[in-house]
């Protein structure tokens, strides 16, 4: 971060930065997610662009103070475009030794550490596996360490509160937040508002948390621990409009309701809880006033079955889960393909295989979405690139499913699901209506498999419509009548027709950020967008290299011009959080010698590592040209 000093309020100077990265880390019980969210909301409200990365511990609670129990929340906020939560924090708030230990390797030299000195006692150090106190043994010499007796200070601040000691102690996160608010010159009001809503009716808690927050702020202002504080101006690049913060999971929920409304039908969401997808169910279950029906099924099979049943009955049938759940839904999705019913399948991917690392992110379910069913069983696939885009692409997924009468996957991931960014509220009227091919009558006997020549959609006749009674099923169908058929030629025809349905989907051409042709094309998809874009822009800017980014939102079908786009670059690099799944699809489809770049660590790409890799690839490309 490069600073310019600006005139400051009396007291300490204010240094201005374009962007900053803060990470809050503490025990699962320390309220780090709330603290991080409040910092984010406040930053967004004062006009910064923001991106966040909450990093949960494993689902199950770990003993307090241990490494597996550490919960983290990172935010990057800036006056300029912010596409990722940042590689390395400028400031790490460490509520205990375990939080310090777990996060230390992510810090760069010179970073600031705000440590809760009180927690670095023998018991705490032992639980974190420290033999010596890192605050004292000189091992943190490369950093600016600010020791704050957070627990003591909070206790002192709340000494008049009627709260019991444990509850008092639970306020220390707001004390820490107060410090950070001062440090980055942010207002306290939004957090006051939140506290009052959250603890409504519990005045004691409201008072205590407000006081802790305020005292933290004053402490930072007064105490001699910081020599300056920082300002990050409102972002000027954001288009005007009304904004809110949105996480990927919230955006999916909103997108689903919107799509159903735009199609004039009801939304039915069948789901079985699973990390990190459960919040979509939770969000939708609160939208009953919008006519949303949610069904917590006995398992994932029941969830998708009910969704397909609802589609048969005329609703927008949607099911949401994560990878292991998708595995269970495979057979039923095949039935939706065969019966040509609309279905949206949300997969919030997590690190696998098997149970894997449920709270960590990954992109390794793309080929499962493509091929994870028996027989030739094609489906549409879209993948949002940012939390806010989860809204747009969810609407798109539903549109494709309803237009073509076919299942469509949305591949989100744990990073998008829990990460958040500002979202400009769309004008509901500006969203195009969705028009499924409903039929209400028929000349002559009804032909449920009479395909539309354009979309290849079959007519959607809802139960309750007299004269259109018909029977669907998973056995092969005769094109037109939909009767069961074992005819060899019809089968071949229907297999081809189901494949063609996907190819007929109208998807926009591939968007290339950067030169339209050149040395290196970075081909990405999904939640890696922020890191890839930032890295590509950096290399374009700093190296003046002919490198571009093509980030796919549509994975089946691919954008119609993708083959050509690939052909315009000397080298194609496919960075993915898997062992090369888009890479497999692209090579198979276009027989291009694309190069894979895999990271499978349960974590997003860092901008710096992508930049380094791009430089290697560019060197390689140049070397090849030289050789060739």
């Amino acid at each position, binding site marked *: 971060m490069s600073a310019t000093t600006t005139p400051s309020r009396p007291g300490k100077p204010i240094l201005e930065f374009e962007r900053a990265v803060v990470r809050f880390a503490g025990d699962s019980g320390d309220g780090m997610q709330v603290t991080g969210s409040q910092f984010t909301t406040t930053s967004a409200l004062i006009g910064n662009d923001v991106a966040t990365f909450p990093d949960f511990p494993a689902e199950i609670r770990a003993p307090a103070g241990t490494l597996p129990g550490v919960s983290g929340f990172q935010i990057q906020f800036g006056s300029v475009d912010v596409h990722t939560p940042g590689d390395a924090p400028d400031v790490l708030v460490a509520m205990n030794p375990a939080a310090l230990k777990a996060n230390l390797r992510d810090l760069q030299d010179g970073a600031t550490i705000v440590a809760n000195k009180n927690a670095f006692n023998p018991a705490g150090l032992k639980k974190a596996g420290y033999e010596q106190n890192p605050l004292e043994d000189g091992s943190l010499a490369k950093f600016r360490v600010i020791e704050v007796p957070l627990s003591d200070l909070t206790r002192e601040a709340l000494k008049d509160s009627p709260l019991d000691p444990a509850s008092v102690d639970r306020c220390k996160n707001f004390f820490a937040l107060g410090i950070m608010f001062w440090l980055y010159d942010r207002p306290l009001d*939004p957090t006051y508002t939140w506290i009052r809503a959250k603890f409504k009716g519990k005045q004691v808690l409201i008072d205590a948390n407000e006081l802790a927050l305020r005292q933290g702020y004053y402490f930072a202002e007064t105490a001699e621990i910081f020599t300056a504080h920082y300002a990050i101006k409102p972002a000027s690049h954001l288009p005007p409009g009304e904004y809110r913060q949105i996480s990927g999971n919230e955006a999916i929920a909103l997108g689903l309701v919107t799509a159903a409304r735009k199609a004039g039908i009801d939304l039915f969401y069948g789901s079985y809880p699973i990390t990190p997808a459960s919040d979509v169910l939770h969000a939708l279950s609160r939208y*009953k*006033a919008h006519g949303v029906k949610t069904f917590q099924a006995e398992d994932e099979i*029941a969830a998708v079955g009910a969704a397909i*049943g609802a589609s048969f009955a005329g609703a927008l049938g949607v099911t949401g889960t994560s990878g292991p759940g998708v595995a269970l839904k495979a057979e039923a999705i095949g039935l939706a393909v065969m019966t040509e019913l609309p279905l949206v399948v949300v997969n919030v991917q997590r690190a696998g295989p098997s149970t894997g690392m449920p709270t960590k992110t990954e992109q390794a379910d793309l080929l499962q979405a493509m091929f994870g069913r028996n027989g030739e069983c094609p489906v549409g696939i879209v993948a949002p690139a940012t939390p806010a885009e989860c809204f747009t692409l969810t609407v798109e997924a539903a549109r494709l499913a309803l237009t073509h009468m076919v299942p469509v996957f949305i591949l989100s991931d744990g990073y998008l699901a829990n990460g958040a960014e500002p979202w400009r509220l769309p004008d509901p009227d500006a969203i195009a209506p969705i028009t499924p091919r409903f039929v209400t009558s028929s000349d002559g006997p009804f032909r449920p498999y009479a395909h539309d020549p354009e979309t290849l959609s079959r007519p959607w006749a809802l139960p309750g419509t007299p*004269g259109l*009674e018909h*029977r669907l099923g998973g056995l092969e169908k005769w094109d037109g009548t939909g009767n069961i058929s074992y005819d060899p030629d019809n089968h071949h025809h229907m297999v081809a027709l189901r494949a063609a349905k996907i190819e007929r989907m109208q998807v926009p051409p591939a968007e290339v950020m950067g030169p339209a042709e050149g040395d290196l094309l970075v081909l990405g998809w999904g939640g890696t967008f922020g890191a890839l874009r930032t890295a590509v822009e950096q290399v374009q800017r700093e190296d003046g290299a002919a490198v571009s980014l093509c980030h796919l939102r549509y994975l089946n079908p691919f954008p119609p011009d993708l083959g050509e786009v690939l052909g315009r670059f000397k080298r194609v690099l496919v960075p993915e959080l898997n062992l090369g799944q888009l890479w497999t699809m692209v090579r198979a489809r276009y027989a291009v010698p694309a190069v894979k770049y895999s990271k499978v660590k349960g974590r997003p790409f860092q901008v710096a590592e992508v930049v380094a890799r791009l430089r290697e690839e560019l060197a390689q490309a140049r070397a090849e040209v030289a050789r060739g």
Partner: protein
Amino acid sequence: MAESTLPKKLTRKDFVSDQEVRWCPGCGDYAILAAIQKVMPELGVPREKTVFVSGIGCSSRFPYYMNTYGFHTIHGRAPTFATGIKCARPDLTVWLVTGDGDGLSIGGNHLLHLLRRNVDIKVLLFNNRIYGLTKGQYSPTSEQGKKTKSTPMGSIERPLNPLRFAIASEATFVARTYDTDVKHMGQVFEAAARHKGIAFIEILQNCVIFNDGAFDPWINKKAKEETLAFLEHGKPITFGAGGRKGIRLRGFAPEVVTWGEGEAPPADLVVHDAHDASSAPAFLLADLEAPMVMGVLRQVEAPTYDAGLVGQIERARERAGGKADLAALFREGAETWTV
């Protein structure tokens, strides 16, 4: 074409589809199909408001033969599709057809939860105590020791009693009937249709090819007077020649009593109470083998899942007071700011 079929009085034939029926000659499924097609016009539900849903199995071909809406789904999962249909469209009348394999082997869990939730669906479980479609393996209702293709030395599994399963799953309507008694089937189907909530019916069905005569000891014409007891709510449970046998309780244990012609039945005969709040009596009846009971074992009232779902939506809408447009949704529960 586009008119409702209600106004004109429907007949059996209106419910016969144009598909050729494909079961083995002599299969019990034919009689069940006929009984359903006969009962349908009595129910006053238009064809287009009726949906038959099934899984996979011989029995699960059923929807193709009904001239209503129909969905032949995948093995064991019919309850899930049916639930989705009924929840999305509570105005539809949903029937579910399943087999002992489809419903109690692979599909046992879905059936259990369907029953427990009291979704307003009518379940017909065709129990032939065998896998018909896959050509003769034993099923969860096959008797222990049964020799089949997959158990050449006899099955070592203890069979499940479908009615007990249904009762433990908290089903609000539980009944049994059998394929050779069209009239009894008709009565039971009609009672199920008129019940508000889940209805579970076990139908003893003969598979002539792979398990012929499985229920003969009970339902063959000659024996059945002695082996079957037909339940009637509020009446003592009697059977045998002249109905001069009844059931009495000794503690928890049922005991058969007989009385002579012209004699008055004992006063302490068990009187069938289908509406008993406790399901323990039905649980006891379900297991009887001599006699085996036929008819409605249990029928109690409880709120349905589908009504509950709709009710919550209505309440939520009231609370929202009409502010449920998309613009409001986008702001719901979030703080917004303007750039």
